[in-house]
């Protein structure tokens, strides 16, 4: 049985069995009826040595193709600092559990406190929880929070301009919670405020969810929306792209009650969809309605300032079915990642990231549309680093062509519409290459027609 993760020698196993009063390891399962015990061997592969494991994953890795994808849609390829990567691999952070024993978990508790402080700053809200799984589930939790706060209302309005990948998760939660989700239509890529007003006037809405920047990359104007929501006793929830909040007007500044979203854009590697980190920030008034862990300051027996998990009376391990949510853990290590990232970048670095992304995206929009093959889907609308274009090109064939050149032309979001995102990790040359590929593709297509 000698194996690198099994420390016992045969002799030790015998000694231990003797103390227990059992004859064999099988004896330890004498309470499990024979007919319930596993008969057949596992079919999983035979054990691999470390070198073979490496080879296995290297081989699979080569079956992926690394692309300059111009993809965003909620997840952005931003610069990932070496320091952030290295800190999350510090084993005292990596191999710890939830900080139940605060006296030997001050490292975790402190960074969560820093995380909460930074997310509250970024969103312009008063408080943040210790993080959620991701942006989609955080938005679903915000919806449930609004319904719980409203007590007798169970209808939630969501803008049509929200990320559809977020919407589909929110809708799943809503279905099982018995929450009615109605969409607020979009006008020219922006939330139709008149339609929103009409729905709110039915006086049965618990919460309103909008987005900044929205799915099409547009920075919407929410002037007056908070007052409108509050007039009709609905909570105003803004789903945000985290990094953008360092430059665009924040949920706090718009007067929102809850800010949610994904923290991935704060330098977390794309990793094919996760792990990322969700954030949920709100006002101090609503803190006891919040889901998830919260870390607070306190003092030890000697009067030293330190940190603990707090307000746990909201949580599942105490309140069981009456808890504010079923969430147990947070996404701690990724919260650490974004905390280190924000420490490194500071407000100035975050602004620079956005300024460069803005420049590159506007450059790409200009050169793409100047080919005549694309036009802006929402001309004149203000955008940061992402925009939608319409094209007459066959998108499937265009993508196959781009893939062959180690690129992807963003994401197809409608029959003739593409959504493209550009960040500071893209160069002017990357943009030029994409435009050239599109032009070449078009020439080949026209050549075929002739």
């Amino acid at each position, binding site marked *: 049985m000698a194996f690198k993760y099994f420390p016992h020698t045969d002799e030790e196993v015998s000694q*231990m069995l003797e*103390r227990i009063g059992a004859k064999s390891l099988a004896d330890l399962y004498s309470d*499990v009826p024979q007919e319930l015990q596993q008969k057949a061997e*596992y079919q999983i592969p035979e054990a691999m040595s470390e070198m073979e494991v490496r080879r296995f994953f290297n081989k699979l890795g080569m079956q992926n193709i690394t692309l300059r994808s111009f993809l965003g849609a909620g997840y952005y390829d931003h610069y990932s600092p070496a320091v952030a990567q290295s800190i999350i691999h510090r084993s005292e952070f990596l191999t710890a559990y939830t900080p139940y024993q605060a006296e030997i978990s001050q490292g975790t508790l402190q960074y969560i406190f820093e995380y909460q402080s930074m997310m509250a*700053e970024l969103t312009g809200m008063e408080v943040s929880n210790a993080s959620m799984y991701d942006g989609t589930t955080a938005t679903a939790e915000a919806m449930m929070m609004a319904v719980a706060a409203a007590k007798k209302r169970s209808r939630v309005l969501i803008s049509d301009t929200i990320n559809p*990948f977020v919407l589909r998760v929110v809708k799943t939660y809503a279905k099982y919670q018995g929450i009615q989700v109605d969409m607020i239509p979009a006008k020219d890529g922006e939330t139709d405020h008149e339609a929103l007003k009409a729905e709110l006037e039915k006086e049965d809405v618990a919460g309103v969810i909008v987005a900044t920047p929205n799915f099409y990359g547009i920075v919407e104007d929410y002037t007056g929306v908070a007052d409108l929501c509050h007039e009709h006793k609905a909570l105003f929830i803004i789903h945000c792209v985290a990094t953008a909040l360092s430059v665009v007007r924040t949920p706090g500044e718009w007067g929102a009650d809850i800010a949610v979203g994904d923290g991935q854009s704060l330098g977390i590697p794309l990793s094919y969809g996760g*792990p990322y980190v969700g954030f949920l920030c709100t006002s101090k008034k609503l803190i006891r309605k919040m889901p998830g862990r919260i870390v607070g300051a306190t*003092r030890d027996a000697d009067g*030293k300032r330190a940190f603990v998990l707090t307000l746990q009376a909201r949580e599942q391990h105490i309140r069981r079915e009456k808890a504010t949510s079923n969430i147990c853990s947070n996404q701690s290590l990724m919260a650490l990642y974004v905390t280190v990232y924000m420490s490194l970048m500071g407000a100035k670095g975050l*602004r620079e990231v956005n300024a460069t992304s803005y420049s590159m995206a506007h450059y790409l929009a200009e050169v793409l549309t100047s080919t005549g093959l694309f036009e802006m889907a929402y001309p004149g609308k203000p955008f940061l680093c992402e925009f939608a274009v319409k094209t007459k090109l066959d998108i499937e064939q265009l993508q196959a062509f781009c893939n062959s050149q180690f690129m992807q032309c963003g994401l197809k979001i409608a029959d003739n519409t593409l959504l493209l995102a550009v960040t500071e990790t893209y160069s002017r040359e990357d943009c030029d290459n994409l435009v050239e590929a599109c032009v070449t593709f078009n020439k080949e297509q026209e050549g075929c027609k002739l």
Partner: protein
Amino acid sequence: MNNKFYGKLIFELSQTGRQAYSLPKNECSEYALACLPSHLMRQQAPLLPEVDELSVVRHYINMSNNNFGVDTGFYPLGSCTMKYNPRINEEVATHREFVGLHPLQCSETAQGALAVYYCLQTCLADISGLSEFTLNPYAGAHGELTGLMIMRGYHMERGDLKRTKVIIPDSAHGTNPASSAVCGLEVVVVKSRPDGTVDIDDLMPLLDETIAGMMMTNPNTLGIFEHNIGKIAKAVHDCGGLMYYDGANLNPMLGKVRPGDIGFDIMHINLHKTFSTPHGGGGPGSGPVGVRAGLEHLLPNPRVVKVSEDGFETFKLQCSDQSIGSISAHLGNFGVMLRALAYILTMGREQLKWVGPLATLNANYIKESLKDVFELPISGVCKHEFVFDGLKDKTSGVTTLDVAKRLLDYGFHAPTIYFPLLFHEALMIEPTENESKQTLDEFIHIMRQIAQEAKDDPEMVKTAPHNTPVRRLDDTLAALHPVVTWRELQAENY
């Protein structure tokens, strides 16, 4: 881990004008951010620290030194399965060819990643005796919610709408009832017998046409195998309900029992427990959900399927209207899956089957070595974990909390305390298969020593810990007067 308290916050290191990043020059600066309309822009910059790179590194390393992890020492936290987190898993998870993939890349360009997903779901199906797994849920509780949605979805699609209750034992993890509530199910609690197993006489009258199913942890949170599971599953199935297996305690079953073989229809697995991925201070985890044959169509969107075209096997993403819907943005915590698959491949079928018996051996060894000084409410063989009800001699007034805090002084993490709620002084110990006899013997020695200290110098134990970076903390102060951000901390002059 060292015992010198660091305690500074990064904000306290900030000096205006410092920076810790470098970015390439903006090649298109002719397009300026300042062109955006000012009323759409942030009015005041966020209060973030201004620090240099070395200060950031030192700050977080000093903080980590006040943290205890599995790599630091023995972590017998019951129901959390604090295994060794192998380094090869970390190496695999940071592989460049996986880390750079965007979740919306054309699936033709992510075949390696999809193969990882498919391979892991196939392995989990074999290990559990179920038909198919989704790896989309982000954590154990998220898996529970997904599994319960499948349970409800199964009844809803048959038009059986009155099944709105779920039966949960009183010993269950708090997430079980909480997940049920989020899924819109009403919780019905079934009592435990004195031996810790489900009271069948209490269960039977609960079974009627309003029952959607039953959630169980087996072995339960007392580490006891529910030997009546065959009978229970039959009764629940006979009344039309489904059986849900909470995989939090799957570890002792490896090599011995497959949930799918003993009557369970749906289950979740915590990859961060049974399959060795790191807990990360509370996440990221991963909570794959498996179902028996006939329920696969209800699994959340998207599913990863293998298709054969022109003799080539490829992997595709599939969405279906029959599904419960999406419960995560894309395919879940992919980085965690890479680690879990690396673990399964390292263990192989030869080693994986020994995990259960060796974890069980370690738990029983501690239990038998300490039951003369700690109160063992349920005797007999346990599985991977067991519960003491405080010290045997309670005259000193030393509580479970005190014992837990004193353990910290000796360089051990404390067991889970005051759970399950069936006993007043619960102390739940789970050693895992990775711990050596030497470590267990040291732990046993210290536990006995603490029992002795409780007699000789109870005050010292009651005021523990004494050698940790901070002393016992005031939880009440934190809850009565919540201070949860740096801004508040400054305003309060904390």
